[in-house]
């Protein structure tokens, strides 16, 4: 997994401020892509690199907040730094709740923005790493047979092989075999690791039907 150089996306309708933002980002030595509207940003294919979005909150057409919503719906995880000419509290609350990294008011201190960009990129990088781990776990999980996934759920729920056999109406021995297969396929060293994986994958243990 090779680390791509991070990119800063700028969506700002005011040309003057856009130019300024460009200049500032290049000061960090980061790649920078500018868009004049939210729509333009959305319609553009985004390189799979870590990065952040510097977004003017007031724009004709889709506003910054609306773009934020669009992105979250599209499962796009990109840290957003909002910039506003005249921020008001409800707007900033809404933005932060929706996961904005930072909310800056014009005129801003350059350093604040630079810090915000750096932080956002780090955030994104971390997020990206997490997303990559989950994706590998998912691949392993996808390799399990249906019976193995059943057993997997009961295992991470903390049931003994014998109990699982009862639940599944099979023998303890069979359960044991599935269990070792699961461990192998998931590349898990221990039950504890397997439970962590299940947690990352969001597998919730099934309800024990009887014997409780």
């Amino acid at each position, binding site marked *: 997994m090779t680390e791509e150089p991070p990119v800063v996306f700028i969506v700002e309708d005011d040309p003057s401020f856009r130019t300024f933002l460009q200049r500032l980002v290049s*000061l960090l030595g980061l790649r920078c892509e500018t868009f004049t509207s939210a729509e333009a940003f959305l319609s553009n294919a985004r390189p799979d690199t870590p990065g952040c979005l510097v977004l003017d909150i007031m724009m004709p057409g889709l506003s910054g907040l609306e773009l934020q919503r669009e992105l979250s719906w599209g499962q796009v995880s990109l840290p957003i730094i909002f910039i506003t*000419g005249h921020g*008001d509290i409800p707007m900033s609350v809404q933005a932060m709740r929706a996961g904005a990294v930072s909310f800056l008011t014009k*005129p801003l201190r350059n350093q604040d923005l630079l810090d915000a960009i750096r932080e956002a990129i780090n955030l994104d990088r971390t997020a990206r790493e997490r997303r990559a781990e989950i994706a590998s776990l998912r691949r392993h999980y996808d390799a399990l047979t249906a019976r193995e996934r059943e057993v997997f759920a009961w295992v991470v729920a903390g049931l003994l092989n014998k109990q699982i056999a009862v639940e599944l109406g099979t023998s303890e021995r069979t359960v044991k075999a599935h269990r070792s297969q699961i461990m192998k396929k998931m590349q898990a060293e221990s039950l504890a690791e397997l439970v962590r994986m299940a947690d990352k994958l969001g597998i919730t243990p099934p309800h024990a039907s009887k014997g409780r």
Partner: protein
Amino acid sequence: MSSPGGEHEASPEVTELRRQVDALRRALAEEALKSSESRLGLIFHGVSDLLFLIGVEAGPQFRCLAVNHSYLKRTGWTQEQMAGKLIEEILPPEQAQCVIKKYTAAVQSRTPSTFEESAEVPAGRLVMETTLRPVFDGQGNCTHLLGASQDVTERKRMVKALHQYEARYRTVSELVSDYAYAVRLEPNGREVLEWVTEAFSRITGFSVQDLAAGVGLDRIIHPEDMPRVCQRLRVLLSGQPGVSEHRIITKSGEIRWLRDYSSPEWDTTQGRVVRIIGAGQDITEQKRVEEALRESEERYRNLFENANDALATFTLDGTITAVNHAMERLLGWSRAELLGQHVSKVATPASVAFAAERTWRFLIGERLPSSTFEAELISKDGRLMLVEARTRAIRNADGKPVGFQGIYRDVTERKRMEEALQASEEKYRTIFAASPDFIYLTDTEGNMLDANPALLKRAGLSLEHLRQRNVREFYAGGKPEELEQLLAELRSGHGLKGVEVKARSLAGEIWDYEINAIPLGNPGEVFLSVARDITERKRMEAALRVSAQRYRAVVETQTELVCRFLPDTTLTFVNEAYCRSFGKSREELLGTSFLSLIPEPARSVVKARLESLIAQPRLVISEHEVIAAGGDIGWQQWTDQGILDDTGRLTEFQSTGLDITERKRAEEALQQLQAELAHVSRVSTIGEMTASIAHEVNQPLGAIVGNADLCLRWLTREPPDLVQVRDALCDIITDGHRASEVIARIRALIKKEHSPKTRCDMNEIIGETIALASYEMRRKHITLRTELAPDLPPVFGDYVQLGQVVLNLIMNGIEAMSGVEGRARELTLRSGRSGAGGVLITVRDCGVGINPDEVKQIFAAFYTTKPGGIGMGLAICRSIVEAHGGRLWARPTAGPGATFHFTLPADSEGR
């Protein structure tokens, strides 16, 4: 004219007077004689005096002893009745007593006494002057009384007459001023005035002394008459008497006429005239009378000759003795042809006979009923003429009629008139019967005599019943004395004209009448009255009065100014209100240009308007400033209309004006108020836009601050990145300007002062407003579409206020779309030309739209749908647009939203 001889022949009176005077003198002489005779003169019985002898007896008693014949004759007593009888036996007791008393006194006094006595004697009443002389015997006893009585009855009468004549003579001589003189002619030729009467001095003014001192004839005689007087003298000296009339100049210079009779006294021994005796009189007055008479006769002749009436004189038998010119003209005969001719030559036999009969009746002393009669005359050409003749007798000196003088007037024309009159009378009858006016006759007391059918109908009476009534019973005027006065007026012979009275019909209805009335016949016989029902007219008059008053009230309070002026602005007519308005008299205004009444800045506009009117005559209403009375600047509204002549050329303007100063002031105040309200509204709008504005300002500020910070970083590098610094600084400058522009825009919008109206490009205003509202639109995610016409005509107005209208409509649109989800929030701004050649601006949103019921309400003040709005925005917009002469209205948009339109008139050159 009296004859000179008549004056000197003694008049009968004078002759008689002289005779009496002589008799008197004789009688006196005889008496004197008798008194000097002895007491028993022989002539006792012979004298005419009444003598009597009384014997004085003891007692004393007086016995009449003797009376003479004269006595008996005069008294009528007989010898027997007197002689030997005592006085008491002769006379009645009282008379006797009286006589005895006198006789006793005479005896006692022993001297003669004279007394007057009157006595009743058989011959009648006698007045006697009696002288009693006592006669004494040798012893000195009074034995007898001798009485001598004179019958003074006659003398008394004569004395009285004499006194009268003397008085008369004195008067006459004073008046007549006769004078007399005598001049002696000396052998040497000298004339010596022997004597002259006082009268001469009185007439001439020269006294006897003056004449004696040598005032000669040459001084007295009028120079013009001197030759005549000298001629007279020569005749006189030849021994011939004569008369002359000549003028003299009196001492005081007055001219008088004298008639002088003089006769020479011839001395045969000397063979020459030795004396001239003359007498004369002042005939100045007579001359004057003569002259007056002459003039009078002349006048009479002139009058006779030149009278318009034809005049002629006739003898009693009808021979024409004189005619005048008018007569000649009337008859066509000449004077020569008429004189001496009989009247039958010119009159019809009937007229001649009638005239003859009149003459006869006149001569026998009958009084003719009238001096005027009608006669028919025949002119020379045979035309028959009707004349009115008026004749008078001509009398001679004895008063005996000797002829006639006639005045003839052609009445042919008058006759025709009379006939016409008769016809007119018939007409009167017709009118009487048919007239709707009420005609009636009354006697002098107002008793009804006759009335026409109209009156009877109105009165509700038959003629018979009406005749029993008096006008007073119909009078309803409330002032009976008024009616009495009218009747009195008629009685005095005056007509009534247009007298208005109220009268009552039998049914009690009261009507107004106008009465015209005249007395007919001999004054005060009968009154003819015509009454016209003027009730309706009165009502109309009353209505008219009210109307007139109303009209007058309108006219008097009329404030409209009226004037007429020539195309070069010279005033030809101004009304009272016009004069008042400018505080100038009509004389001051007429003939001058009214431009001097307009302040300099407004003149060119007025001139331009008139020029356009001359080029294209029409009715134009305009408003402009004027210099009103007292020099104040006022406003007037004028309606100018050109007056064209027959050829269609404009000759004059007729204008009516109104003083609209107050209105203008109110308008200005309103404008001021509206401007303030607009300002408040703008400020409020700005308030609503605070966020946008902050953004608009922060945008460039943010860039500036950021770029500046970058610059610092670049400069602190080693080496500094100057290229980057320069670029950033350029941007900083641009953004600085941008920020200041935003500030300026806002300042312009919220500044309070009233900006002057200028020529504005609506597209520019829209652009500026969009710039201001752009962030608001961004903020509300509104897409703006503009469709601005490139060839938009300019408008004339307040830049800020027009911008405010656009901003308000944009903000309204933004507001309307703020709640819209699920469709495009699009605001469209469009500019273009309006139908009338002005500008049409459209602002269209696709918001909530307008309920059609609310289309009208939305422009009302305080109408709002916004929780925080004051509801003035649209109301202010409309008042601004209308103040600019435009219109603002709203329509629901086809599809969602609403559309606002407003128009503005294009800025014209003339304005």
